């Protein structure tokens, strides 16, 4: 099936997210759509999937124009989509999730769940997924949730499959598996639109590349193009993919976690006896696939989750049973992983978000009274310093782009003397240009002597920042390794292989991944 988008324009209010975009996807082609955050990739795909009605332009399938009045029409036309933010109902089982919208029934509208389970098992088997049809979605790790999304699309016989940033939540090995699945699909004649901003992946699998910037197609490329070429196309200027930094000069060890254990609601171990320490002037990066306890580690350090056992010592003081506020006052700077739920308050002004965890301290408050003038002045100063693009500091922070919101969080957390910085996914959802800036600030904080603990699922970021790398798997520390450790070794450790074994396996060449192979391509 040949898919053509021609002249698609989609506006949100007066903001044009897609500006007359043309795109052709040949049958059996893997077509990569590349672009930085907010470029309009998801919007375009949502138009294609019938979720958004475009203001202009049309969609042609095998040469005939289509009118989709909703996703139902798109699905009927053979289009399947795995959304960037999974479209799964957390409390449903896998079988229910896959059945939704296309329910097998036993007459009288009663669900035939047996049939639904059978479908899941059949497709799982075909692609070698291990998915229990009766598992509840919210209990599944993200990787498995993604496979559920793929099963969903495949169970509807999609001929064009849209994968919107499918690798963001996967380990390198899982990414490999996904690439294998994409190949399998391609062989069966399915075309795939593959959205990402990870250049390495694009080069590994794409047949054709289209780059979008600010809602426009700014060029096409072939997999052979270099990473910097692609990055330049994406951002519109030259970018530095790595942060220049001096070697660290670690000072004394002022922060240590001993035997930290966190137990979840079902008595399952979320953090299993984790011990680590960070020195002054050092960045310890915690790597791992989402959901392996890194978030809990960061949260336990701030006091958002109560550890069952263990100590958290900062400057010789055990904080394990202190309140969040006391820990903040002890000098912990915290950048939460989920900005919109934990980092900022959407309805609050930028000014107020700048003092979210400082509102009751000097000089922002005296006694019970806030000091609006100081708050404003200090806020303006930080806006300047962190180059936050805004029209007024009094507007709600929700009017800012994600990257600028993240800068507000950083400005707040880094804008005061720190004894420890804990930052989770500091650049999630931030564009390439801003990533550079954020990384620089973190390194600057390190250089000023603050111990930094950075949690990141992006290996690029980990390599970029870390002086040491701690790898976590299922709540346990798999080891702490130097930043010179090869990507494949980290990948194996992230999948639960102990350090020594991982090193051995990679050395013997049996587990080298394609992605890292692509990385080693001469650029």
């Amino acid at each position, binding site marked *: 099936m040949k898919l053509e988008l021609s002249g698609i324009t989609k506006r*949100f*209010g*007066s*903001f*044009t997210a897609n500006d007359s975009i043309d795109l052709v996807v040949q049958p059996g082609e893997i077509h990569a759509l590349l672009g930085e*955050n*907010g470029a309009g990739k998801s919007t375009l795909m949502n138009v294609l999937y019938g979720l958004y009605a475009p203001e202009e332009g049309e969609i042609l399938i095998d040469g005939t124009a289509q009118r989709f009045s909703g996703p139902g029409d798109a699905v009927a036309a053979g289009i399947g989509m795995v959304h960037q*933010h999974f479209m799964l109902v957390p409390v449903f089982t896998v079988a229910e999730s896959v059945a939704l919208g296309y329910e097998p029934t036993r007459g009288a509208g009663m669900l035939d769940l047996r049939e639904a389970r059978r479908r899941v098992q059949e497709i799982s088997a075909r692609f070698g997924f291990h998915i229990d049809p009766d598992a509840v979605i919210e209990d599944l790790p993200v990787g498995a949730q993604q496979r559920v999304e793929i099963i969903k699309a495949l169970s509807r016989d999609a001929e064009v499959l849209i994968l919107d940033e499918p690798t963001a939540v996967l380990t390198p090995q899982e990414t490999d598996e996904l690439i294998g699945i994409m190949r399998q699909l391609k062989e069966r004649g399915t075309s795939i639109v593959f959205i990402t901003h990870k250049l390495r992946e694009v080069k590994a699998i794409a047949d054709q590349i289209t780059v979008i910037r600010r809602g426009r197609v700014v060029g096409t490329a072939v997999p052979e193009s270099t990473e910097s070429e692609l990055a330049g196309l994406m951002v519109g200027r030259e970018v530095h993919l790595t942060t220049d930094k001096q070697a660290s000069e670690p000072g004394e060890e002022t922060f240590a976690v001993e035997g930290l254990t966190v137990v979840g609601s079902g008595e399952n171990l979320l953090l299993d006896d984790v011990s680590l320490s960070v020195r002054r002037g050092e960045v310890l990066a915690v790597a791992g696939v989402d959901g392996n306890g890194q978030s809990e580690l960061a949260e336990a350090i*701030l006091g*958002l989750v109560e550890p069952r056992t263990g100590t958290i010592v900062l400057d010789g003081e055990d904080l394990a049973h202190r*309140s*969040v*506020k006391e*820990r*903040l006052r002890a000098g912990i700077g*915290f950048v*939460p*992983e*989920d*900005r*919109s*739920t*934990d*980092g*900022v*308050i*959407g*309805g*609050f*002004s930028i000014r*107020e978000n700048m003092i*979210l*965890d400082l*509102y*009751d301290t000097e000089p922002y*408050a005296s006694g*019970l*009274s*806030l000091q*609006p003038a100081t708050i404003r002045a200090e806020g303006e100063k930080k806006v300047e310093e962190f180059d936050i*693009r*805004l*029209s*007024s500091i*009094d*507007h*709600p*922070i*929700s*009017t*800012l*782009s*994600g*990257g600028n*919101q993240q800068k507000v969080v950083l400005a707040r957390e880094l804008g005061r003397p720190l004894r420890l910085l804990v930052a989770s*996914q500091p650049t*999630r*959802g931030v564009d390439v240009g801003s990533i550079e800036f954020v990384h620089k600030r973190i390194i600057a904080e390190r250089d000023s002597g603050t111990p930094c603990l950075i949690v990141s699922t992006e290996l690029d970021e980990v390599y970029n920042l870390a002086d040491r790398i701690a790898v976590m798997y299922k709540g346990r520390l798999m080891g702490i390794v130097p930043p010179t450790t090869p990507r494949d070794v980290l990948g194996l450790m992230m999948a639960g292989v102990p350090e020594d074994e991982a090193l051995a396996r990679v050395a013997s060449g049996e587990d080298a991944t394609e992605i890292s192979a692509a990385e080693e391509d001469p650029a």
Partner: protein
Amino acid sequence: MSEKTASPAPVPSGSGATSGTGDPGTGGRQPARRGEPRPGVLRDLLSGSWMVSLLSIVVGLLVGAVLIAASNPAVQDTLGYLFARPSDFFVATWNVVTEAYLALFRGAVFDWQATSFVRSVRPLTESLVAATPLILAGLGIALGFRSGLFNIGGQGQVIIGAVCAGFLGYWLTLPLGIHMLVALLGGVVGGAVWGGIAGALKARTGANEVIVTIMLNSIAGFLIAYLLKQQWFTRSGSANPQSRSVDDTAALFPLLPDPFRLNAGFLLAVAATVFVWWLLERSTLGFEFRAVGENPHAARTAGISVGRVTFLVMALAGALAGLAGAAQVLGTEDKLTIGIAGSLGFDAITVALLGRSRPLGTFLAGLLFGAFKAGGYTMQAQTGTPIDIVLVVQSVIVLLIAAPPLVRGLFRLPVPAGKEAR
């Protein structure tokens, strides 16, 4: 506004759609007001939403007019021969409706038909009297809303506030002034305890505040009924379930001489409005309240104890409602009866909603409802129009004010710049 800004992005965004797990489609409770700060009341007025408010009131009155006319026997009679002589119908309708609404106005603002000057101007003060407890209790509800708590318990809190204030008001013997302060304080503490129970239960066990406050309302109702049967409590020497009158030393002092009933309670309402404004907008505590209300996760991450806030908000909301009860018993009613709270607690919810949970908005909404209440008495007494009309008019107004696009659509008003029609 986007033309004026030099920001590289063409249009400011709505609901933080770019975050990792955020779901842009279902993010907010209300359509995101894009690119605009939460408007203050003054801004509201200037930016034209006063027009919406005004028109909402007009529509509310029109709906009321339809009911008034439809139920009026005189109008019904003319309907019988509508086609034979339609003018009768229109004349009758006009007469009935204008008569009712003029009475409403005379009862609420100024009575030009009154026998004396004092009686002419008294209605306005009566509106203020009726508004006082509505404002106080409404502020309590609004405080809860702003902090993400749905406090249906105003009724119970008003009752307990009145019980405590009233009891101290006749049971103690204290010098003038001090007695009043002690009694008021009693009302505040009583309401705070009653609200605080729901807050503490929510904070400690997660018990849903909607359920608990509903239950506490009923419990308070039976509690006052029980107390008013106990001689040690009522000290009235009468078998009727009512207490003795509060001492003059405890009564809220009048602001105007007889026959005006306007008393210091209204000053309390004004002071409380200012206090709540300061609390929410200018204090660290209010910062915590609003933070928890807008996003409890982020508040917790920022070191704010959500449980503590939950308790404090409910206690403070209860305190304000308790003050309403105290003002009622020390200011206007002077003794405790089973029905001392009327339906204040529920009316207060509508007042807070109409005031968009903002202190000044609640104050103005309280004045409007107070005026309706005072005017309603006159309308009922002089024209026989059932007072329930007022409920209908009030609810239509609140609904419409909450849906500006509907009002604009009805009157084909232009959509103000910066707000996109959905």
